[in-house]
């Protein structure tokens, strides 16, 4: 297989590490050496030649090829079977509505949250159970890391260069979660978003850090969801009032109360849309009185409509916890869901 990339020789594993660190090609952690063999195995897995064009980064006109994604995926620790997820996630990120340049350059410091659905989760061992939003398993850890290494190396999203984040958050190392589809009666997120049943898919969202909440003192769906809505209201008061895609991560303990009450994801979204809204005057309570102006009575909703809520069944079996994952900056970036293996050049993705 012919590669376009320049190659380097290094006589030890530590020399490889120093080569990559000293060139600014890492996230600060050690990398797996991207040898020709390892990169070729990734490309063969997805049946793509090295120069396969995955897309053009829309702002700076950078061509993203399968070869470069594969090199970075290997560095992140991906096995060939993880690579289709990386390719699909990047294809999704390059859709115009995702606004990749803005989301990855912004002072707001969001990360790309990757949500996995479908059979591929089980094939690659991606877990949506214990520690779902963190180091739950190898697959989600390395896939999330590959997304970031590609941003660093392909878009120059290095801190202080293109990445102008004031703070960032730990999800910028890796931010990937698999939905626990086997342990819920709910429809998978991807199916809600139009992907056919049984297809594997990737959803990407420009996302802030998870805001963890707890309510172990009720079994009533309305009360459980009120805690989620309150966390979203807090985000709207403390961070951003812009409406957009929020994600709710609902682990098993709280999920079972909701399911027992017959609540579907659509019911949850309708309730949350009604409850997650604030008056502009509330900004005065949190030190932002200067921007209330004469619009104190204006009401702002967390989402434009219920279907902007991404409800994800994930998390360990015990604990009355949940998480709200807020959008980077409301509707400036929309979450994108793509089935794995689709050809986005063949027909436009559904909005």
């Amino acid at each position: 297989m012919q590669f376009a990339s320049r190659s380097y020789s290094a006589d030890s594993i530590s020399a490889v590490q120093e080569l990559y660190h000293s060139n600014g090609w890492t996230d600060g952690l050690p990398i797996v050496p991207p040898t020709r063999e390892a990169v070729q195995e990734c490309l063969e897995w997805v049946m793509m030649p090295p120069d396969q064009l995955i897309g053009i980064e829309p702002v700076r006109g950078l061509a993203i090829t399968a070869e470069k994604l594969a090199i970075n995926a290997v560095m992140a620790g991906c096995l060939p079977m993880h690579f289709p997820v990386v390719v699909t996630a990047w294809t999704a990120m390059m859709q115009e509505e995702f606004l990749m340049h803005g989301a990855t350059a912004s002072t707001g410091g969001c990360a790309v949250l990757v949500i996995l659905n479908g059979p591929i989760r089980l094939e690659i061992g991606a877990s949506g159970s214990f520690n779902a939003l963190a180091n739950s398993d190898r697959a989600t850890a390395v896939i999330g890391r590959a997304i970031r290494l590609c941003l660093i190396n392909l878009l120059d999203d290095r801190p202080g260069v293109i990445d102008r984040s004031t703070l960032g958050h730990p999800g910028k190392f890796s931010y990937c979660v698999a939905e626990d589809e086997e342990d819920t009666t709910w429809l998978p997120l991807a199916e809600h978003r139009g992907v056919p049943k049984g297809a594997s898919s990737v959803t990407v969202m420009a996302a802030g850090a998870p805001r963890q909440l707890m309510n172990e003192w009720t079994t009533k769906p309305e009360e459980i969801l009120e805690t989620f809505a309150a966390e979203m209201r807090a985000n709207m008061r403390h961070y951003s009032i812009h409406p957009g895609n929020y994600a709710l991560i609902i682990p098993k303990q709280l999920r079972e109360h909701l399911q027992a009450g017959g609540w579907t994801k659509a019911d949850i979204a309708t309730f949350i849309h009604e409850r997650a809204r604030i008056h502009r005057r509330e900004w005065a309570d949190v030190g932002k009185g200067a921007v209330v102006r004469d619009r104190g009575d204006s009401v702002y909703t967390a989402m434009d409509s219920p279907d902007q809520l991404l409800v994800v069944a994930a998390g360990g079996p015990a604990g009355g916890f949940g998480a709200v994952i807020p959008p980077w900056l409301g509707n400036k970036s929309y979450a994108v869901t793509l089935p794995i293996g689709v050809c986005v050049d063949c027909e436009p993705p559904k909005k």
Partner: protein
Amino acid sequence: MFEVLDPTPGTAPPAGRLAPRLDTLEGKTVGFISNGKEGTKGFFRHLDQILREEYGVANVVSRTKSNYSAPADPHIVAEIKGWDAVVSGLGD
């Protein structure tokens, strides 16, 4: 021995070309492209004043992007041809 591959594009992104530098700002038209953030207002107001009063700029045209996280709108970019110089400022 490891033979490893470069993870970066290896080539510079398509670069724009700097417009010819102006000898003077006297009598010129300068365009401002603001990202619309709060901090830009005072910055551009002050810059407008300096350019007119101290450098003799004839016209200052102020435009604001519709989305501060996205490139300038096409209709703003189209206007640039009519300006002698552009200041594209960030503000937070």
